[in-house]
């Protein structure tokens, strides 16, 4: 019961505290401790040092073990930087939204953990809807028109999408009619056990609805727009949180239904649907990068691209699946650094336009270097993680003889690489007379930089250490999906 308390009840309680107490410093400390507890517990759980006993509708298996680790890792770093971030003076309107910041953050943690630990589709649905609701006001942090619009669009699109997902869930229960007795419907393991018996038509329908519905949250094209708007206009820690963990929460739902599908005859269909979706999102990212004019949107589209790659890997199965899981981990870490650095740049220049941001290297040398390195990392330059996971995915594609897909995504990735780096270099190096004149003082080394450096080191160390626990866990996930390398 302790685990349930720490994972879900404690954050809820913390958010409640944050509602009572008004001082932001205290908010920070509360959430910091919650984050630490969460992280420690999830590490313990991940290393199977702590055996969990959870109430009904909740249960832990290898997937949730893996994803909750990612979640609490991202959350931990985000919380640490958040205080530093909130201290920055922006405008008096923002002061208003600072009050609710940690409250919502804690609520987000609670709901997201619930979503990840749930072993019942209904529970999952409720929890993930709750995550949307908790994030939506955080998107509106800056209280300006863009953020308002972004919030509206995100909330609306995702709510509708998730409603569709619910229809999918209903179909699923329809598919399992007369196979599962009442009260045991919609539990994952039951469905997986009887996957082969499920009614094919409804299973297909439910897969389509759930996949498309959750795509709005994952950011799979063509349902990516609301997601991109939100990510690009949210404050950087929230953007990091969204790209790092929220999208994965949605992905988890898709994984669940996919896991059921893998044991049924619909497998190939589901695979092809997912591949289509991922290729579409890669294409969208590829097409956007040519005319990008807003660097935070650039990063948002890069998340679209990477989630697309992950989906592709999952759909391909086998080694690519392993690659995809690694990719989700590395991507989550990498995105934190990217968004934090982008946030620094945005704070200095007060603009998201690539045209109006120039010569970052001169004005913010540390941020500039870190941003450059993290961009290189996200573009798949060794020794950072993305390189290894991408190689795994490519190899998996080759093993399953999907040459055309491989060539296609390599083409997309190549141009994404070229254009993204082009834009980023424009930001970093291009001289602009008007800014470099009133170029004031040297940037001083802050906590954010330290954290980014640590994260980058983490990103390089995890793959190079060939950590066995992660690998074993991923193998067991693979096993749950009835695949093998």
């Amino acid at each position, binding site marked *: 019961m302790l685990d349930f308390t720490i994972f879900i009840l404690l954050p809820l309680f913390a958010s409640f505290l944050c509602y009572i107490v008004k001082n932001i410093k205290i908010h920070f400390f509360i959430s910091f401790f919650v984050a630490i507890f969460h992280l420690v517990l999830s590490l313990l759980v991940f290393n199977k040092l702590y055996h969990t006993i959870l109430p009904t509708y909740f249960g832990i298996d290898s997937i949730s073990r893996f994803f909750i680790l990612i979640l609490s890792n991202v959350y931990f770093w985000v919380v640490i930087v958040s205080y530093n971030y909130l201290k920055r003076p922006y405008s008096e309107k923002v002061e208003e939204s600072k009050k609710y910041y940690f409250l919502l953050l804690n609520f987000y943690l609670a709901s997201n953990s619930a979503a990840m630990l749930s072993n019942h589709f209904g529970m999952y649905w*409720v929890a993930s809807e709750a995550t949307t*609701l908790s994030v939506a006001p955080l998107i509106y942090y800056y209280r300006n028109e863009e953020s308002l619009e972004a919030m509206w669009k995100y909330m609306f699109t995702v709510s509708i999408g998730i409603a569709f997902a619910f229809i999918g869930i*209903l179909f699923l229960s329809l598919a399992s009619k007369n196979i599962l007795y009442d009260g045991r419907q919609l539990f994952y393991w039951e469905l997986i056990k009887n996957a082969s018996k499920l009614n094919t*038509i409804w299973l297909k329908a439910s897969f389509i609805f759930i996949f498309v519905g959750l795509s709005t949250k994952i950011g799979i094209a063509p349902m990516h727009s609301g997601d991109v708007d939100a990510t*690009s206009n949210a404050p950087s820690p929230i953007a990091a949180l969204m790209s790092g963990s929220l999208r994965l929460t949605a992905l988890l739902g898709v994984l669940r239904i996919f896991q059921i599908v893998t044991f049924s005859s619909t497998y190939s269909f589901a695979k092809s649907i997912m591949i289509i979706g991922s290729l579409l999102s890669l294409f969208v990212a590829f097409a956007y990068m040519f005319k990008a004019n807003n660097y935070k949107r650039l990063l948002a589209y890069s998340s679209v691209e990477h989630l697309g790659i992950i989906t592709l890997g999952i759909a391909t199965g086998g080694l690519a699946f392993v690659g995809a899981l690694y990719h989700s981990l590395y991507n989550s870490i990498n995105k934190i650094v990217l968004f934090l650095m982008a946030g620094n740049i945005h704070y200095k220049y007060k603009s998201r336009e690539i045209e109006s941001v120039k010569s970052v290297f001169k004005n913010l040398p540390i941020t500039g270097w870190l941003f450059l390195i993290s961009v290189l990392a996200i573009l798949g330059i060794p020794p950072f993680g993305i390189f290894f996971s991408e190689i795994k995915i490519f190899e998996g594609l080759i093993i399953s003889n999907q040459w055309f897909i491989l060539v296609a995504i390599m083409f997309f990735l190549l141009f994404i690489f070229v254009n993204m780096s082009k834009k980023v270099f424009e930001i970093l190096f291009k001289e602009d007379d008007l800014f470099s004149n009133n170029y004031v003082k040297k940037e001083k080394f802050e906590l954010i930089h330290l954290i980014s450096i640590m994260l980058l080191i983490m990103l390089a160390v995890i793959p190079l250490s060939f950590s066995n626990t992660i690998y074993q866990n991923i193998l067991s996930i693979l096993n749950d999906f009835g695949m093998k390398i």
Partner: protein
Amino acid sequence: MENFFSILFSLSLFYVAITFRVKAYVSVLRFQGILLALLLILPFIFKFSIYAIILPLTIVLIKVILIPNYINKIILDLDIKRKIDPTIQQLTFLIIVIASVIIIFLLTSIISNNIELNVIPFASGFSAIVVGIYLIIFRKKLIIHVCGFLILENGIFLISTAIASELPMMIELGILLDVFVVVFLMGIALNRISDTFEGFEVSHLRRLKD
């Protein structure tokens, strides 16, 4: 009996399609809420139990009282114009709606050959979903979008009753709560929008572009 209510439900959709007044949407929502509640109570008329009554009551509370009142309040506060201004002619819209409803009924009946489900509630629920989407697509006013979203939700609810899947009580409640919170947040957002953009048109929300 179920079928009767469902028919009423889909009729309310047609009313939505042709009405010009914003208020009408709210009353339709109320009506649909009542229908859903009744649908839920139906099976328990003879064998009465306290658990059976909780859910209908909450539905009545949320879908019939709270949400419509809230929307009314918004409409009053932001004095939104009574008339909706459709992007396409009402008649065309109506035709589209009818056509899609017919198609949905046909499809459902086709599908129901090889799997048993009570067609009419399912189909009307589904058509509610579609109509909800249509409302969002073909209307400019954001408030109507919200209503469209709610109609969609109702449709889903109807389906869930139609296929009689035993969703656990607390999860049903959770869903209702979520929906309510969504609407609540949307209301707040609408307030903000009204005082940042001076208007509730979708056309105002065009800042974020690639």
